[in-house]
């Protein structure tokens, strides 16, 4: 009995028997598994969306920039020198010059005030330097850089354009928090579903349990088939959840790619990695085992031979 190979052989035999029993009632098995799958797919989908947003919000990428509005006193021909100076600062990746004429042209093009501006004797717009921070900069580094640039005598105002990034981060935060909360709640729902199914199965097989106890079956022997059934339900549910999430992902791939494209981010709408898939199976199996175990430890004791 202690020989591990004999034990494994016995375990596999029991698992197969539990599977065959489930296969004998395919519709009921499928229904229960589908309920578990649908329950699992919601936290799974949230997880997938959150993990697609993560690289988007992770690096600063092309998205973040600092706009330096220069004082009127700075002449256009001083701009290239200033640009060279800024490029030497740590944390600066690139600097683009928008001189006053270019700024005016841009303003005319986008504002619709072109005719009114013509009435002004002078160009009222300041020159702008657009600074792109280094890729590995985090929010604090950006703030430090902004403070430093603001201290320059030529600089009038610094504007940091990263509100969308902050929002994205907040959203991602919310999503991953929601994944956990929903995952815990729906995990509980899976436990209850499996527990209830196993409870019905125990009631259905009450006479078999009674006779088994009568002829001296150990508690472990009686418990085992129900625990295996729970594990199978969990595994089937996990596979169905994976399948549903893949289909959902295919459906939301186009708008997701559009969103990613807006942020100049390349995404591939891949479903789960192999590791994540195995983790999903593990979670399903663990929930199944736990749910079955709860039902078994509550209800097997109620059935005693008479």
């Amino acid at each position: 009995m202690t020989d591990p190979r004999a034990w494994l052989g016995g375990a596999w035999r029991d698992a197969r028997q539990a599977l065959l029993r489930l296969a004998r009632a395919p519709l009921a098995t499928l229904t229960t598994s589908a309920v578990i799958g649908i329950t699992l797919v919601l936290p799974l989908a949230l997880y997938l969306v959150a993990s697609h947003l993560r690289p988007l919000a992770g690096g600063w990428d092309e998205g973040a920039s600092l706009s330096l509005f220069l004082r009127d006193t700075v002449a256009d021909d001083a701009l290239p020198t200033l640009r060279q100076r800024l490029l030497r600062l740590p944390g600066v990746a690139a600097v683009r010059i928008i001189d006053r004429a270019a700024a005016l042209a841009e303003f005319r093009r986008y504002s619709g005030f072109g005719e009114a501006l013509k009435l002004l004797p002078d160009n009222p717009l300041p020159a702008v330097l657009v600074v792109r921070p280094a890729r590995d900069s985090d929010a604090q580094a950006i703030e430090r850089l902004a403070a430093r640039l603001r201290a320059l005598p030529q600089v009038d105002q610094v504007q940091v354009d990263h509100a969308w990034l902050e929002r994205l981060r907040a959203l991602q935060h919310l999503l991953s928090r929601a994944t956990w909360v929903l995952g815990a709640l729906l995990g509980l729902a899976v436990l209850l579903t499996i527990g209830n199914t196993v409870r019905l199965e125990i009631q259905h097989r009450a006479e078999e349990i009674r006779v088994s106890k009568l002829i001296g079956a150990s508690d472990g022997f009686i418990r085992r088939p129900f625990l295996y059934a729970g594990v199978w339900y969990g595994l089937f549910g996990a596979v169905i959840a994976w399948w549903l999430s893949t289909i959902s992902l295919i459906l939301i791939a186009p708008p997701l790619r559009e969103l990613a494209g807006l942020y100049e981010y390349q995404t591939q709408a891949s479903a789960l990695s192999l590791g994540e898939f195995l983790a999903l199976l593990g979670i399903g199996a663990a929930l199944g085992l736990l749910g079955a175990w709860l039902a078994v430890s509550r209800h097997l004791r109620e059935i005693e031979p008479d």
Partner: protein
Amino acid sequence: MKSVSLAKQRLSADPARSRAKGDVIHFEQVSKRYPDSHAGLSEIDLSLRQGEMAFLTGHSGAGKSTLLKLIGLLERPSGGQLRVLGRYLNRLAPRQVAAHRREIGMIFQDNRLLFDRNVFDNVALPLVIRGMAPREIARRVRAALDKTGLLHKERALPVTLSGGEQQRVGIARAVVAKPPLILADEPTGNLDPGLSRDIMALLDEFNQVGVTVLIASHDIELISTLGKRILVLEEGRLVYDTANPEGRHD
């Protein structure tokens, strides 16, 4: 006095289990009271030696089934000392109950077969719960079916069998693991006299090879012709024992 100290010695060696050579069943002032009921058993003194066969009889409600249930630990005694197969049942831990039952082959009036399994699987159950290898199970099940004359029915479902055949499946299941003790509660209850005689003869055959057999039956006509020990219960008391006809029974 001597036997008491001997018993104490055995107790200290192994409290739950010590085989007193000879006595497979030993009741000492055993009582059983059901809650909310006067009925049960009162102060039963009774011994069955190894290899003995006895019948337990009495009116309906006398306590025959109760006595068998105490032996198989389907009920716990309310008082007295009960020793079966060397185990002191009063102090047996719940987790040891299953092991105790595995050493007893139990046969029931309503045979308690699993009706969604065929004859082979029903008879195999006691071996399956022991974790025996499939090949060994098949060999032993066929031997038990052969002995009970059911070899040709191994694939049949119980509902397709006659009452006598179903009872023999129950007997095959009780003996397949070769228990040292067989208990039968009204094994011929639903059968006609000819079939009843066959069943008793079959149980006698197991007794011939050394198995201790205790059978509860109200069929006094039948059992009085078999020349075995007869115990009579009345209102929960043992009032007569053919092995001890002079004994004080009150």
